């Protein structure tokens, strides 16, 4: 277990003035971009990663966590005001938030979303802090055979859960692994698929692939769809009653079970790779509506609807880091981006992280808790400002984001070669999402690819090339059996859906 002095030192680092200022900056940036439809925290994180190179690892990762958490709060603003969620996670929030805003209570709706979001997020962070260290101790007992089997299981689950086709999920994973194999192979260190470009000797640059696939491809899509027309500003109506501009303690307290249920659902969904916060929000909303004494009021501006959706989608953020920190497996795009930030700073997330970088991990935990309080504070002060942000035209947002991506990737890869690669992956990302291939699986496979191949190589070395030795590891056998079972289960589910 991690020494108490390391835990305290980590929390001390988190509460340093510099770190708190960067968390604050991250939360403000996250809420800002979350409020702009079409940008969102994922794109903001992708753009911000290269700019965090010069920072201390804890400060950089805390900043990105701030962006992610702030983005979830900000995403509720356009969902409530325009029925246009800033992030997919906020789609369920719009179901009751928008009707409430139309009744002249936009601030009540956005404040309820803020309070529920912070409540769910804090619950999830507490679970993360208490559960991850013991899980990491268990994960340390896993050898290369178990790790390879675990990754095969993760791929099979992700391919089945994300998107609407198992085949497309497998193809996206295979493509991600192929792209990850560019560079030198992990055993012989011979060049592979570099086509004479020695810049590719160390593999494709992480920022180029991540930003191209996640940010530029989405910007290109949005620009193509809004080509020739600039989105107009929104017109808000508000009542004169001050009670309609705030959430009273009685109203908040009446939603306590709804928020607790949402937080539990979000935490469970977040800990399982690939399910994501959107599913958690809709599941929590559906549960709350089903258990309500007045289900007909849902969809007409019920505060419980907003509380259910927001507490669940925000609870995913904390528990998403459980598989990342304990096993080194990112369960979502935001976790994959955080893993890339770890790797950029020379750290490999996984169970060893608690031993080698315990202070940093607990610093991160401290920063996450602080980010929740800052989120609440900034949200209280900034909601009126974010309402104005919603009306900013996409033309300036997208052109600025593109320039920032160009500069960020150029700095991260030391030249325009990385920017050109970013554009290639932007086109690939655009085509993949246009044809219904899940980008999340591609990105996760790309991140895990080198480790996956290395685990297989080490497993073969341990077993002298005799794969039947795998049967001596009950954990690996169980994971491989689960992989096969989940593969056929998702296959049969897909057939049922088609019928």
């Amino acid at each position, binding site marked *: 277990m991690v020494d108490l002095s390391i835990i305290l030192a980590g929390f001390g680092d988190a509460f340093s003035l510099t770190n708190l200022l960067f968390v604050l900056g991250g939360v403000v940036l996250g809420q800002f971009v979350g409020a702009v439809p079409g940008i969102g925290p994922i794109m903001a994180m992708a753009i911000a990663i290269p*700019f965090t190179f*010069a920072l201390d690892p804890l400060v950089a990762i805390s900043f990105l966590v701030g962006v992610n958490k702030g983005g979830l709060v900000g995403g509720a603003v356009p969902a409530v005001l325009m029925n246009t969620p800033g992030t997919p996670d906020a789609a369920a929030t719009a179901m009751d938030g928008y009707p409430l805003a139309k009744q002249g209570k936009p601030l009540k709706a956005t404040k309820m979303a803020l309070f529920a979001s912070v409540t769910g997020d804090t619950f999830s962070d507490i679970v993360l802090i208490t559960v991850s260290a013991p899980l990491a101790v268990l994960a340390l007992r896993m050898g290369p055979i178990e790790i390879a089997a675990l990754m095969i299981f993760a791929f099979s689950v992700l391919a089945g859960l994300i998107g*609407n*086709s198992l*085949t497309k999920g*497998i*193809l996206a994973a*295979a493509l991600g*692994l*192929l792209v990850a*194999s560019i560079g030198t*192979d992990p*055993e*012989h260190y*011979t*060049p*592979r*698929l*570099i086509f004479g470009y020695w810049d590719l000797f160390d593999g494709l640059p992480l920022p180029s692939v991540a930003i191209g696939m996640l940010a*530029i491809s989405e910007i*290109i*899509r949005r*620009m*193509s*769809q809004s*080509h*020739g027309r*600039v989105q107009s500003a929104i017109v808000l109506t508000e009542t004169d009653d001050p009670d309609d501009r705030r959430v009273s303690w009685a109203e908040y307290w009446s939603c306590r079970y709804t928020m607790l249920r949402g937080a539990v659902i979000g935490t469970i969904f977040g800990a399982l790779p690939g399910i994501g916060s959107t599913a958690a929000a809709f599941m929590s909303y559906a549960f709350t509506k089903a258990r309500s004494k007045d289900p007909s009021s849902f969809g007409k501006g019920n505060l419980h609807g907003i509380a259910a959706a927001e507490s669940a989608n925000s609870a995913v953020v904390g528990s998403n880091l459980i598989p990342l920190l304990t096993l080194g497996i990112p369960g979502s795009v935001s976790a994959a981006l955080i893993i890339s930030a770890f790797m950029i700073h020379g750290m490999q997330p996984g169970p060893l992280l608690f031993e080698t970088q315990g202070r940093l991990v607990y610093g991160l935990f401290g920063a996450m808790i602080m980010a929740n309080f800052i989120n609440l504070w900034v949200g209280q002060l900034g909601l009126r400002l974010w309402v104005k942000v919603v009306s900013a*035209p*996409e*033309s*300036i947002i*997208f*052109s*600025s984001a*593109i*320039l*920032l991506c*160009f*500069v960020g990737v*150029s*700095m991260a890869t030391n*030249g*325009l070669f990385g*920017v*050109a690669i970013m*554009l290639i992956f*932007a*086109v690939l990302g655009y085509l993949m999402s*246009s*044809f*219904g*291939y899940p980008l999340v699986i591609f990105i996760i496979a790309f991140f895990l690819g080198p480790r996956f*191949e290395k685990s*297989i*190589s080490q497993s*073969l*070395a341990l077993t002298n*090339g005799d794969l039947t030795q795998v049967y001596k590891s009950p954990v690996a056998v169980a994971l491989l059996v689960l992989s096969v079972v989940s593969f056929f289960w998702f296959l049969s589910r897909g057939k049922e859906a*088609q019928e």
Partner: protein
Amino acid sequence: MSASADRISGTLFLLFGLVLYFHIIPTYVEVAEGGNLSPDTMPNIIAIVLAVGGAFLVLKPTDHRTENLRVFAVTAAYVFVLASGIYGMSWFGFEYVAPPLAFVIMWMIGERRPAWLVAGVVLMPAFIWFLVIHALGRALP
């Protein structure tokens, strides 16, 4: 495009997997003697998965629909502009290419209001220049 979208992408994956297996991997992956895992083992397995997956998608397409050809054409135009911007930056640098690039993008989106155009074409590149050169102390492309 209708359900044939899956057949198109499936065919592309099938062909890509075959070209990868029979031409690209033998040509561009160096052969190494000994060891447990040859450098071409993983790419070969992936190529087979891509080809088989593509074939499966051709035979069993989903009802996924994608954008119409006009949107793809507009996207191609944006990609051309961005590629030209990268090429231009390699010759003239960010300072000279960023403002016209931002202008073309904003104009293509449909922005015609002078105030927003000035903000996007002048203020934003100037802010990025200040951030990178003075605040971060790094070089622009």
